């Protein structure tokens, strides 16, 4: 077994996973009407993947904003353009760093726990038990998690971005002494609602949320029912999500330009 497994082409393996996950998506979406009966479950998952991720997202957002402000201030100082610090922090966070870092953190925190949870349910026959109790595990377990992820990610991105702006302001204005009015007026005259906030934070957040949760629930649902299987699936979730986020980010950015 291990001999043949080793010999299998990694590329082919990856393609198979992508295809399989892609086919999983229609199944998942088809189960949305049925999973409306388990709306409470979606709310519960929203609590786990959304509310419970807030602290890490907020902390990281704050520090990203602070470090960006610090770096940019010293670079822009060379050209006498420190007034633009706020603008550059906002643009960098809205268009790229916000959605990407949030998605990477989300994959690490919520994605892995989804994979491990569903994988363990598979390993301990809980999914079969649900089927035996005439409860569709896709509608009851998988779809609520997917919906929760898709809803939570854009919101988390917004929280991250807001914290980053706050952090940038803290360092730029309070610490380094950029004029408060300059900081804001520069930002407000250069940041566009549609191009930066909606396209960047919201759409990217939504797309990343869908991709990360799809990968997570698919990996969990197709886990081989062993402890090794669950461990491998969790690792694969992080690796596949990270690659997917960064690759998709490039594609989306190219489209939005």
């Amino acid at each position, binding site marked *: 077994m291990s001999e043949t497994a080793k010999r299998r082409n990694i590329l082919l393996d990856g393609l198979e996973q992508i295809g399989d996950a892609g086919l999983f998506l229609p199944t998942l979406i088809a189960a949305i009407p049925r999973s409306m*009966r388990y709306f409470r479950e979606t709310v519960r998952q929203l609590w786990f993947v959304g509310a419970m991720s807030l602290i890490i997202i907020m902390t990281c957002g704050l520090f990203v904003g602070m470090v960006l402000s610090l770096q940019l201030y010293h670079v822009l100082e060379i050209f006498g353009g420190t007034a633009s610090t706020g603008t550059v922090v906002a643009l960098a966070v809205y268009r790229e760093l916000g959605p990407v870092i949030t998605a990477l953190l989300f994959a690490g925190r919520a994605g892995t726990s989804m994979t491990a949870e569903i994988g363990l*349910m598979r390993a301990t026959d*809980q999914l079969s*038990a649900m*089927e*035996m109790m*005439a*409860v*569709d595990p896709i509608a009851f377990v998988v779809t609520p998690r997917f919906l929760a992820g898709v809803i939570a990610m854009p919101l988390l991105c917004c929280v991250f971005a807001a914290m980053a702006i706050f952090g940038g302001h803290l360092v730029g204005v309070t610490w380094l002494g950029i004029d408060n009015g300059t900081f804001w007026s520069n930002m407000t005259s250069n940041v566009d609602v549609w191009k930066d906030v909606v396209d960047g934070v919201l759409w990217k957040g939504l797309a990343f949320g869908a991709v990360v949760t799809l990968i997570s629930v698919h990996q969990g649902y197709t886990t081989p029912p062993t402890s090794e299987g669950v461990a491998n699936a969790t690792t694969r979730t992080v690796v596949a999500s990270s690659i997917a986020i960064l690759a998709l980010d490039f594609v989306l950015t190219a489209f939005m330009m």
Partner: protein
Amino acid sequence: MTEANDSSGSEANNNSMVRARGLKTSFGSRVIFDGLDMDIPRGKITAIMGPSGTGKTTLLKHITGQLKPDSGELLVDGKNVTQLNREGLYDLREEIGYLFQNSALLTDYDVYENVAFPLRQHTRLPEVLVRNIVLTKLQAVGLRGAAKLMPAELSGGMARRVALARAIVFDPMLILYDEPFVGLDPIALNQVLLLIRTLNQTLGITSVLVAHELAAIQQVADHVMLVANGKVVAAGDPRSIADDGSPWTRQFFGGESDGPVPFHYPAADYAAELGLGEGA
């Protein structure tokens, strides 16, 4: 329904809860069932025994429709499982209790919510009624006091009893026990045995047991079937089946290491593989 009438009349159909004819299943190149015929009588406790890897759990999954056989006919309570759609299967499954080998309790919920789970999913009963039903079932398995515990806090025997309470919460017509005695200490084993018998006698639930423990089965089962080689090789009363003279029963119940079930996994000739065949 019509197919049942076509093949062998309605009399057999009325007496058997599960009826299989010519069941064939294979996983890849491995043949699990090769034309299996089987009748499980209504209202009785039937034990299915057989060497490991003969597909006893697969047989249970066929009965519940979780796995479809490659060909053959399988009637459960007169309904052809292989032809039911999703809704039909789910309706049927509400009538079947299934006790998993590892209990399969939902780890997110406490004991009370685990037992209440099927009720909450399929009915809109008022909370008072749910509470009454759940406590009745928990009382039946002797774990009413453990209602607030989480599955992780239960011992193996307790978890299995909770799973049993959950399986009977809808008063099913059929309960399938997948290896209910594995890993239980003698006390817990006797508790589970007692429950299986009580449920069968008081509620008239048809019970199907998949197990290896002959002593336990002799205490509880009305009927034993020995599955090997993809077929039912022997069937009969649990006390007499061991002496029916077939080589299968002799090996299985006698516990002989070699017989129709070979000790050696199929392999090339030993001498040849060691390189002695040609040299000699």
